[in-house]
């Protein structure tokens, strides 16, 4: 069995394991919370003295939702998803069954990594393509903002894919942590602490772009070195995953 074929099989199995799980629902819940929060805020606050035009209102919606997503919800989403994906195997001591099957060990690890990245992609696509336009349409119907016409989905997607690529290092780090430690608490504490630290570190022009948990925020700040930040995320994710994969392949199940 080739390694690519083995990875395909492991991903096919992951898809079934996710059926009916909170991990799957979270891909809908997390982006819905962001848009819901914005809609509630706009619906209940006083109308602005100078009403923006439709284009500016759409851009404001996009900027606010993507900022909230990148700074808070995305790192927390990755934290919780990684913990839930890991718990699927740690909970019922699945590793002793999975790792006794004639399948390269790396396939199990990479399947988790790809699944986490795929769940994040699904959540972000849902946020940008479905929920943000829906939220804007709702605000237009309720009346606080003049949100009419087509939302600038293409512009949002352009920012969104950069945010997505900048989050690869967090995805890799959390996959490694969640598959190494059995404890759900360890994974969650690391993610929560790093996210809270990110709210401070993210304000630093020197350190913000290079702290993994604030890297996804950089595409929104139009950082001059965004290409290097993006590359750092991808190279960092590759290095972290290679090391974690090496350790996973040598891991003993006692």
């Amino acid at each position, binding site marked *: *069995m080739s390694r690519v*074929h083995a990875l395909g*099989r*492991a991903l*096919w*199995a992951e898809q*079934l*394991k996710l*059926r*009916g*799980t909170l991990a799957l629902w979270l891909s809908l819940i997390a982006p819905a919370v962001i848009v819901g929060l914005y809609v509630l805020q706009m619906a209940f606050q006083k109308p602005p003295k100078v009403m923006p035009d439709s284009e500016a209102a759409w851009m404001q919606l996009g900027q606010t939702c993507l900022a909230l997503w990148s700074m808070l919800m995305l790192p927390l989403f990755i934290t919780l998803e990684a913990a839930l994906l890991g718990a*699927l195997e740690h909970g*019922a*001591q*699945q*590793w*002793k*069954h*999975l*790792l*006794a*099957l*004639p*399948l390269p*060990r790396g396939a199990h690890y990479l399947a988790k990594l790809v699944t986490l990245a795929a769940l994040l992609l699904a959540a972000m696509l849902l946020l940008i393509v479905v929920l943000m336009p829906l939220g804007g349409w709702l605000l237009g119907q309720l009346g606080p903002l003049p949100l009419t016409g087509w939302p600038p989905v293409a512009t949002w997607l352009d920012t969104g894919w950069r945010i997505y690529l900048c989050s690869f290092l967090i995805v890799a780090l959390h996959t490694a942590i969640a598959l190494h430690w059995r404890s759900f608490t360890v994974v969650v504490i690391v993610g929560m602490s790093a996210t809270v630290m990110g709210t401070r570190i993210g304000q630093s022009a020197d350190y913000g772009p290079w702290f993994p948990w604030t890297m996804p925020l950089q595409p929104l700040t139009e950082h001059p070195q965004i290409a290097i930040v993006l590359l750092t995320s991808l190279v960092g994710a590759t290095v972290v995953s290679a090391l974690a994969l090496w350790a996973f392949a040598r891991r*003993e*199940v*006692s």
Partner: protein
Amino acid sequence: MSALAIQTRSLSRVFPGGHGVRELDLEVPKACVYGFLGPNGAGKTTTIRLLLGLLRAQTGKIEVLGRPQRGMPLSGVGALVESPSLYPHLSGIDNLEVTRRLLGGVNRKRIAEVLARVDLARDGQRKVREYSLGMRQRLGLALALLARPRLLVLDEPGNGLDPAGIQDMRVLLRSLVQDDGLSVFVSSHLLSEVEQVADHIGVLHDGRLRYQGALAALRASLRSTLDIRCDAPERAATLLEQIGCRVNRGTPELLQVQTTTLPDDAINRHLVEHGIAVSQLHRPPVSLEQAFFELTGQPGRSA
């Protein structure tokens, strides 16, 4: 082609604190049930994890189905290690489907076959979280059988099963050997669980193999002590020791002759010819349990 399903040579893995297995030379014949017996903590699960590549040996060699085990899982082996590894939020069928997808090359029809084999055909659609402990154990066995293995490695498969379930498990294991030609390596801390189903046994204690061989050979080798009551026990003991018997003086009236190559009637004749009146000559039956406890140094408790 090797006639052994499993062969280990000087296999050792010792953990900090001294637990583990030492210098194991296992020889598990093909197409039989091999009962791997030992008290809790003897090293049975460690051995099984070594065989499956879940642990790495410190020294020694392992061959499974004629192929060297180098810390990676081998095809042709189905396993159930301790409690079954199941996804409680999925149905029994979906749990099997997860493993089928991972294995590749297993027809989906096989799921129905293995469910029927472990008597779970009617419960396949139910979520595993609704299963009893025994049903989970049977589903774990179904997972092990899914890829039509040639060797089945089962760690305490009777855990959680009621007496009827244990009986069903025995019947299933026998049929897997007799009808399908599988080799079955089954560990247990309960002699009673395997003595009715195993052809061969290995007895592990403190990480070392204390006995290995055919169960029939062990039964045949068991000879109980010969209890003798007579009118002159002291003189009788001396006479018996002179002809090579080992004699225990249990009580003033009772002699226990432990090992002898002489048949019982020859011992009786020898005593009578020397003027000793023998009032009782009795050989109480020895159970396999007693032998097991003697091998493992455990107190004589019911298994």
